[in-house]
């Protein structure tokens, strides 16, 4: 049965949650509405609400399920990302960027991130380019959010992956279209509170179940000989250690994956997230940002800090404590895929799989490795998988069932079907842990946590994506100005603006244009969501959630960050400097992903097609193929902004006065 593990109460709680979200959305429409309405009325948003809204937008299923699963693979070194999330994503973003962004955004009457950039640099090209980048790449991040929720539903409720994807996409998609886009603060806050409660319970339960903080960490440290052999070869030294650091040997690959892609790519990329930057525009003053820090700093610690810690600790549970009781329906000799690169033979682990029915439904719902099978390697030598993989311990019970101790690491425990194959799927680690280690009622709590995390993030993603294509690309390319365009004499903009647009009244042509824009916005959102669902449908395994998120965050950092920060703080940065910086960031990132970064270049396949050999043009230069594009693109982008600005004409004083305020110098 499709919903074999979903009972009445599961459905009842989900429906109750959706009803509560719907009610709060209606309440928001009929009363206080959104942050902007507060501002119109000259009122301030409560800092708790502002922080929760920002946090719920920031943190998604990607962070909890995707990056939590990566912590299950690579360990607590991922906590460096939590530090960056809090310090850069909250402290620096709120205190350093928040105020200037809000002031400049209001002075320039900017309503989207590309519009802010375009008006700061008096460039329609910048606005269109930024809009196109967001529209093209945001679906990748939306897919990561979808996959996170889907993996949990598939594992926790016994759904097949495609059904779970359909259900999750429909629920979040309906929410986005029926009110989510407006970003009602009550709804965001409610979702933030649910996320906080869910993650707090998870943290306490996880630490208590491993005997406390120090005992848990000590046990995890002692497990380092259980690290999967494939990870040892690239520098994994245990779940409480950093990967081996160095340059020029494959042994150092993991350090560069963890630090350059996962920690720096996402940790720095958060500063130039279009959907987060917009949140600053709705704040009344710096005082609200100061106050929101108190809640924001706590919220992010409870989200990513808990997910990464629990992800790592899950190894102790699976190795030492898990007991699976059920009927063994079948045994299967299978080659479980550990790593799959396009165009190359997948790296597999030959082993005996147990298919176990733990619910009495007559269908296998749990798949465990019983033991490894020795096999001949490419060089003819035997690979002793029977020794490299821990053997599960099976005790028959009198009623025909069996008690099984999997004695697995998180990686080898997360066995899932993918088409005709079996894969070790890191994105299933957190869902498997929640299903196996937590009480049944928590599955529903966690599902609500993930629904809340996905809904709040996806609504802002869709809003940003739709406005990027409608407002920033279509409106600009259609050659008409929008009603909110600042007076040309104030901005230095030479374009003429019809009189009626400068006032709040609307002409017929303005209304027609507005209608067309709305159609484009909605079509853009539909296309973006379909792209996200398509991507989620075709990709599974290889910690794809974290990788897709890192690509989006890294690209935003490389293409936007130097021009954005430069535009906020430096008067001397010029339009040419900003354009060239964005183009360099975009081109270098694109080049790196297509030709150098092995995983992404392999998926694209151009290098392999041309050379008939490896996936990366730097395949023979160890470590380069795993270095994130950000490491190269961001410095080049920043340098370009600096150098080009120094050699080009500075912006007019009148325009700078408009951007920075008349009284500033």
């Amino acid at each position, binding site marked *: 049965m499709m919903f074999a593990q979903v009972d009445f109460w599961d459905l009842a709680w989900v429906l109750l949650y959706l009803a509560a979200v719907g009610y709060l959305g209606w309440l928001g429409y009929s009363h206080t509405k959104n942050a902007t309405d507060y501002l119109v009325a000259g009122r301030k948003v409560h800092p708790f609400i502002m922080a929760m809204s920002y946090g719920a937008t920031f943190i998604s299923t990607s962070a909890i399920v995707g990056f939590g699963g990566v912590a299950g693979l690579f360990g607590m070194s991922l*906590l460096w990302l939590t530090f960056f999330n809090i310090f850069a994503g909250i402290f620096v973003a709120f205190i350093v960027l928040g105020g200037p962004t809000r002031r400049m955004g209001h002075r320039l009457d900017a309503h989207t991130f590309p519009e802010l950039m375009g008006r700061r640099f008096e460039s329609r090209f910048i606005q269109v380019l930024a809009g196109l980048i967001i529209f093209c790449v945001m679906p990748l991040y939306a897919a990561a959010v979808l996959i996170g929720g889907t993996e949990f539903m598939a594992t926790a409720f016994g759904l097949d992956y495609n059904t779970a994807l359909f259900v999750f996409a429909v629920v979040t998609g309906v929410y986005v279209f029926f009110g989510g886009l407006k970003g009602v603060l009550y709804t965001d806050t409610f979702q933030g509170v649910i996320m906080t409660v869910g993650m707090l319970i998870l943290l306490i339960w996880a630490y208590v179940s491993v005997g406390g903080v*120090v005992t848990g*960490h*000590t046990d995890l440290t002692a497990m*380092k000989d259980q690290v999967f052999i494939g990870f040892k070869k690239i520098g994994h030294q245990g779940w409480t250690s950093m990967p081996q650091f160095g340059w020029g040997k494959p042994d150092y690959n993991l350090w560069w994956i963890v630090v350059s892609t996962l920690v720096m790519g996402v940790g720095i990329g958060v500063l130039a997230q279009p959907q987060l930057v917009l949140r600053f525009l709705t704040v009344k003053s710096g*005082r609200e940002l*100061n106050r929101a820090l108190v809640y924001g*700093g706590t919220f992010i610690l409870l989200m990513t800090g808990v997910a990464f810690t629990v992800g790592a600790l899950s190894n102790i549970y699976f190795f030492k404590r898990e007991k699976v009781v059920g009927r063994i329906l079948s045994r299967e000799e299978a080659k479980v895929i550990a790593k799959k690169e396009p165009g190359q033979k997948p790296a597999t682990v030959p082993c005996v799989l147990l298919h176990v029915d733990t619910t009495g439904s007559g269908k296998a719902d749990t798949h465990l490795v019983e033991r490894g099978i020795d096999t001949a390697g490419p060089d003819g030598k035997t690979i002793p998988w029977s020794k490299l993989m821990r053997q599960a311990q099976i005790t028959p019970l009198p009623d025909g069932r069996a008690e099984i101790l999997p004695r697995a690491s998180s990686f080898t425990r997360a066995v899932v079907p993918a088409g005709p194959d079996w894969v070790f799927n890191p994105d299933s680690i957190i869902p498997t842990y929640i299903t196996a280690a937590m009480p049944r009622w928590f599955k529903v709590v966690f599902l609500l946590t993930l629904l809340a995390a996905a809904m709040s993030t996806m609504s802002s993603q869709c809003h940003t994506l739709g406005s990027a294509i409608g407002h920033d690309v279509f409106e600009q390319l259609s050659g008409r100005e929008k009603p909110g365009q600042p007076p040309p004499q104030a901005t230095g903009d030479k374009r003429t603006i019809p009189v009626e647009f400068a006032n709040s009244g609307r002409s017929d042509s303005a209304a027609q244009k507005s209608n067309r824009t709305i159609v484009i916005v909605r079509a853009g959102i539909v296309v973006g969501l379909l792209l996200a669902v398509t991507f989620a449908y075709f990709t599974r395994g290889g910690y794809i959630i974290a990788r897709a998120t890192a690509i989006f965050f890294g690209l935003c950092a490389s293409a936007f960050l130097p021009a954005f920060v430069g535009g906020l703080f430096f008067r001397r940065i010029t339009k040419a400097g900003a354009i060239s910086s964005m183009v360099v960031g975009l081109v270098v990132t694109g080049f790196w992903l297509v030709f150098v970064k092995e995983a992404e270049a392999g998926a694209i396949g151009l290098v392999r097609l041309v050379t008939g050999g490896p996936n990366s043009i730097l395949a023979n230069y160890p470590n380069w193929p795993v270095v994130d594009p950000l490491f190269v693109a961001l410095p080049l982008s920043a340098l370009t902004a600096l150098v080009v600005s120094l050699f080009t004409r500075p912006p007019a004083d009148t325009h700078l006065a408009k951007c920075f305020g008349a009284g500033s110098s």
Partner: protein
Amino acid sequence: MLGIEDKWVALAYLLCLAASALCITYGLLRWNQGDEPVEEADQRWAEHETRESEEL
């Protein structure tokens, strides 16, 4: 430290807590600072934003 083998990972663990504490302390110390009057530009921006949001 704290049962964590590598000092760099232990440092990350402590820095997470420290960064969170920094946010809380800074926010509490400056709880009443930074208030700014709503200016004409703020009002105009908010009205435009509301109208566009309603249309959407």
